[in-house]
């Protein structure tokens, strides 16, 4: 921070002071020029995503830490150069060769209470597949060494034509006032460049540049729900009582080990085997004597 920027006479409780409406949600921001935030070298925003709302993919010039205050859904990040490891089995249609299915980088579930860490410059998207709105609080560490621009966070959207949530503060400050026409990082290139670089036709290029997209803002509604390749969520394994039960079981097992040391070797082995084969459930079978020695691998 600049000279005596952290010299506070008093601290203030801050509320968001700007809201950007979207088709399926809102993005509220706190002014990063507030003394408290500027001294801490951070910026803050709150994103509310309605049911079936998709936050379009974007990257930012500083690391982000996102806390899920409410709701649940799925999110994805794209790490340059990493493989698309989530892939659908090839389906061959009648009489034709295998139809190219989809493949993409990892997609994960999130729920209330989660922290999601998004490194600088890494595209991130999220989708609300729950019944209640998702509320996510994002802290952007603008003075992090990874940020080589200034302290105003910039959101580089890959698609759509939404306005920048934080640049308003810079415009207001600079008195430029004019409302920047929203866009995305691809909408500034010539059509010919994009047709050649993406090997697609003019119509698709117009969509990429957000020209035919009258849906407002960075959060759009996915009618009929979003289908991506992702393992189903496991039911929550651990209630408190289950945890206590397991702790008692571990104690019992420890006692048995002390009383009959040679038995537990197998038993332990058997239990390990059990755990391995019944990944989630813990199955105990009465101990049987093995007549042949089991080879350990």
């Amino acid at each position, binding site marked *: 921070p600049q000279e005596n920027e952290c010299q506070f006479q008093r601290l203030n409780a801050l509320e968001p002071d700007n809201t950007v409406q979207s088709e399926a949600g809102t993005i509220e921001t706190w002014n990063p020029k507030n003394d408290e935030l500027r001294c801490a070298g951070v910026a803050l925003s709150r994103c509310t995503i309605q049911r079936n709302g998709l936050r379009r993919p974007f990257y930012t010039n500083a690391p982000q830490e996102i806390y899920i205050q409410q709701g649940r859904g799925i999110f994805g990040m794209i790490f340059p150069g990493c493989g698309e490891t989530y892939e659908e089995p090839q389906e061959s249609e009648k009489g034709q060769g295998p139809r190219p299915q989809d493949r993409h980088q990892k997609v994960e579930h999130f729920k209330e209470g989660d922290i999601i860490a998004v490194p600088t410059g890494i595209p991130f998207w999220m989708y609300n597949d729950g019944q209640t709105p998702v509320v996510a609080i994002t802290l952007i560490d603008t003075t992090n060494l990874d940020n080589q621009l200034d302290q105003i966070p910039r959101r580089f959207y890959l698609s759509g034509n939404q306005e920048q949530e934080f640049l308003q503060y810079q415009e207001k400050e600079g008195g430029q006032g004019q409302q920047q026409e929203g866009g995305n990082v691809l909408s500034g*290139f010539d059509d010919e*460049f994009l047709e050649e670089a993406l090997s697609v036709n003019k119509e698709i290029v117009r969509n990429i540049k957000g020209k035919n997209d009258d849906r407002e803002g960075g959060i759009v509604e996915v009618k009929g729900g979003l289908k991506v390749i992702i393992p189903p969520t496991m039911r929550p394994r651990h209630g408190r009582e289950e945890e206590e039960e397991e702790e008692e079981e571990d104690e019992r097992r420890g006692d048995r080990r002390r009383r009959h040391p040679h038995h537990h070797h197998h038993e332990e082995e058997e239990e390990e085997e059990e755990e391995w084969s019944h990944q989630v459930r813990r199955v105990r079978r009465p101990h049987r004597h093995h007549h042949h020695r089991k080879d350990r691998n």
Partner: protein
Amino acid sequence: GLEETLCTMKLRHNIGESTSPDAYNPQAGRFKTLTSIDFPILGWLGLAAEHGSIYKNALFVPYYNVNANSILYVLNGSAWFQVVDCSGNAVFNGELNEGQVLTIPQNYAAAIKSLSDNFRYVAFKTNDIPQIATLAGANSEISALPLEVVAHAFNLNRDQARQLKNNNPYKFLVPPPQSQLRAVA
């Protein structure tokens, strides 16, 4: 131990028309990036460098520097550059000639089309392990997104989204269209 380390640190590393580029396409060009991994003293400086050459009418796909600013100096020939900011404004859209310098800020998207037989440049990067991410082509940010995310985010139908994800098989350097293909020397 200073003699074996700091005092005898390697201080020179050639990246000119290197015989072993990191990316190479006989019809489009090549480039090599020098980082602190192969030239340790750069870790001390926090800098890196890249040397590239792109053949006539070939394209460097739209990309951005993930964690560095890039200061690009033209060694030979000329090329058409476009640089786009977070609001989709083309903050640079023009020809860059020999001896000129262009600064591409971190995260700004850039694309290059060579106008010379052998457009050569050196780019200085303000991070000793610089990363770039491509916005088009194989393994690009868009091709790594789920198909439905691409369809809904870009307002495309599934088939158009599949084309957007998969049509360009090249990773960084795209050869000129058949019509403009340069005579192979």
